[in-house]
């Protein structure tokens, strides 16, 4: 491993720790970091451990999931404009979630978790349908087929959401708020719910880091290098969809993270997926923690939807890096 990569990991780790520190400390009440282990001030201790910490961790996990899924999808589809939402999985999750609000569904026993669980089921169903359909069209699942299939399903599911929005009266604000994304007031159960998906999905993607590298040169060359292209594609699509579906189900559709973070990471540290995936994971977490912090503090006590902040921060940063890169 060379020096640059070590620096890359160290700086990303430091950025993440600093983000967590800022995320738990700053807010309507300033909480010193020492409260983490020091429970002498009980109210501060409670704020930190029951409100701030789960919120920061949830933001971090959602950001990490979207970023690593985006990096893997961009690599797999060989398209820098791909993001975790390209395959339509997020629209599936959204339909599940919006339907929950629209029909005021509440499944017994899981009550408050009806929305994220239906969201995940929506994501899962969409993934299965998209993959099956793409495979029906063309057995080798060319990249263009996948992208087009994703576009078709996204727009169809998008119309379903629009229809529900058009027909709704009272729940409009709730639906819009969910669609714009938020990690507030979720608490530990949501963190626990997303963790297994993040762990399994990320490990699955990371196992295919070398295959992603080989597939940069096209399916045929990858095959000749000994890559089981079909299996790798499935694994990466399933891993990425799992992460995306889980993230959308718990926090709504938060844009830009999955597109910008892998891009920035690649520009800074190179396109080698052996490192790109993990670095995107770390940087995605940091970015979303900071965005969430901004969203709840900038015009406090009003909270701006986090998706607005990611776009506000993401777009200019992205443009600047893009500009610098092209001018070289």
């Amino acid at each position: 491993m060379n020096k640059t990569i070590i620096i890359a990991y160290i700086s990303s780790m430091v950025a993440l720790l600093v983000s967590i520190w800022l995320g738990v400390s700053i807010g309507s009440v300033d909480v010193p970091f020492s409260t983490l282990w020091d429970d002498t001030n009980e109210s501060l201790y409670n704020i930190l451990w029951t409100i701030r910490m789960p919120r920061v961790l949830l933001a971090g996990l959602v950001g990490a999931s979207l970023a690593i899924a985006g990096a893997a999808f961009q690599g797999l589809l060989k398209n820098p404009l791909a993001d975790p939402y390209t395959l339509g999985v997020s629209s599936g999750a959204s339909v599940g979630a919006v339907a929950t609000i629209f029909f005021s569904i509440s499944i017994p026993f899981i009550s408050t978790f009806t929305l994220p669980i239906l969201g995940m089921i929506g994501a899962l169903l969409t993934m299965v349908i998209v993959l099956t359909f793409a495979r029906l069209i063309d057995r080798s699942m060319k990249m263009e087929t996948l992208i087009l299939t994703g576009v078709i399903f996204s727009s169809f599911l998008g119309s379903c959401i629009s229809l529900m929005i058009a027909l709704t009266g009272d729940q409009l604000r709730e639906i819009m708020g969910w669609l714009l994304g938020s990690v507030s007031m979720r608490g530990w159960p949501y963190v626990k719910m997303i963790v297994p998906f993040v762990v399994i999905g990320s490990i699955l993607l990371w196992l295919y880091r070398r295959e992603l590298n080989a597939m940069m040169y096209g399916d045929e060359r990858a095959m000749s290098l000994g890559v089981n292209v079909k299996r790798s594609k499935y694994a990466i699509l399933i891993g990425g969809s799992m992460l995306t579906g889980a993230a959308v189900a718990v926090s709504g559709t938060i844009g830009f993270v999955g597109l910008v973070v892998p891009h920035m990471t690649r520009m800074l540290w190179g396109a080698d997926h052996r490192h790109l995936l993990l670095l995107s994971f770390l940087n995605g977490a940091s970015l979303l923690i900071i965005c969430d912090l901004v969203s709840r503090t900038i015009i406090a006590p009003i909270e701006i939807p986090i998706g607005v902040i990611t776009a506000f921060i993401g777009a200019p940063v992205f443009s600047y890096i893009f500009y610098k890169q092209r001018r070289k």
Partner: protein
Amino acid sequence: MLQVKNICGGYGTTPILKDISFQVEKGTFLGILGPNGCGKSTLLKIISGVLKPSLGKILIDDKELATYSNRELAKTMTVLPQLHGAAFSSTVRETVSIGRYPHQKGFFSQWSEEDEYAVNQAMVQTGVKRYENAYLENLSGGERQRVFIAQALAQSSQLILLDEPTNHLDIAHQQQILDMIRKEVTDNGLTVVSVLHDINLAALYCDELLLMEKGQVRAFGKPHEVLLENQIADVYGAQISLQAHPEQPKPQITILPEIHEPLKDGKITLNHIQIQEEYVELRSQFPLRVLSSAVHNAGLGWYENFINRTVKPEYNIENVQEEYTQYLYKAGFSPTNTVGMMTAVEARKAIIKQYETPFGEVYVIVTAGIGGAIDVSKTYEREFPIRIGTINIWVIMNAKLSDEAFVQAMITATEAKTKALQHERVMDYQTNTIATGTPTDSLLIAATQTGDYMQYGGPITPVGKIVGRGVFEATTEAIRNYQKGE
């Protein structure tokens, strides 16, 4: 190394390949040729395992293709399709390192010393080591292609399949890439199978060629066995002509354009031939096909101007090529379009004779200096230096001559010249025998290549008859002219 047995197959239900069989030995370079759409790429895809054949089998190292695992196959055979770049910017070293994929075991394996060595070796062999940290997108097409070949070499397999590795490259890069591949074949025993577009490059670099036509093997063998004029013309449906490579014993083809500058008005008359102060000239305004032993632009070629220049006896022969080129410039001739001879005889003593024949007019122009006349059968016993004197003969024909007619006309003309010397009793002053010529005689046969086609030029053919007579008569007169002046 590679055996292809009765392969049939293609995409979907329509078969593209029909019963293809051939084999490639270790350490050979096989080129696959054929017109667009003949199934070259399909064949490559079937050999590489991307497509399954509907019938037949492929053996690599005597083991059936289907029985190899992905990685095992990747260690035995490398396939390099036409690549243009990676989806995301990578450095040269990163790109080459991808070639080690099949050698990395398990999900957690680390980069080994062997991997490092193979990558460095591949970069050195292909000459990309010096820009190993450059980004692929900043390289030229040729440099990028080298990087991809380095990636293929880093895979360390014994068999490499290439798909048009020189596509879209300029000739310098084509040469470098193919030299590089050839070197791996010759020095390291690599086996290469490559689809090639350029027949001439294939003939130059490949040990064996496979010529495909409509999904079948039309010919398989050494370049000279496969590249037959009629066969290539037939398979490609193009007008071509076959020639030898100037330096290598390999056949090369040339396209014969169907639309070309009309040669119709190409008719030589007496007006084209002029005697000037310092030289005899022929300016034709259109190119003639010429075979000559002249001083300037000897050999076979196409030229518009011929000159036979008078020089002083003390002319310094040392840098004759340069001096002659300068002279042609000054005299208003294009040096690349002019055949030049030299003589010590004054231009005004040249003999120009015109003959009417059934196939067209023939002109014979001769200057004869016989001061240095010798008997060719006795030259082995004589010493140099010898006296000055040269017989320069031009035969210009309004006809279309085959290559053998040109050579036969040269023989016939030489015989006629010798006969003229004998007739005039020109003696070798040292041996006191009848001379056969001078040590510096030059001969030029030129034809307009329009009109009647003359396949032969031997003594009893129409061409030979007139060459024999004309050269004899003109040379005899020229000798008399020369003797008169002495």
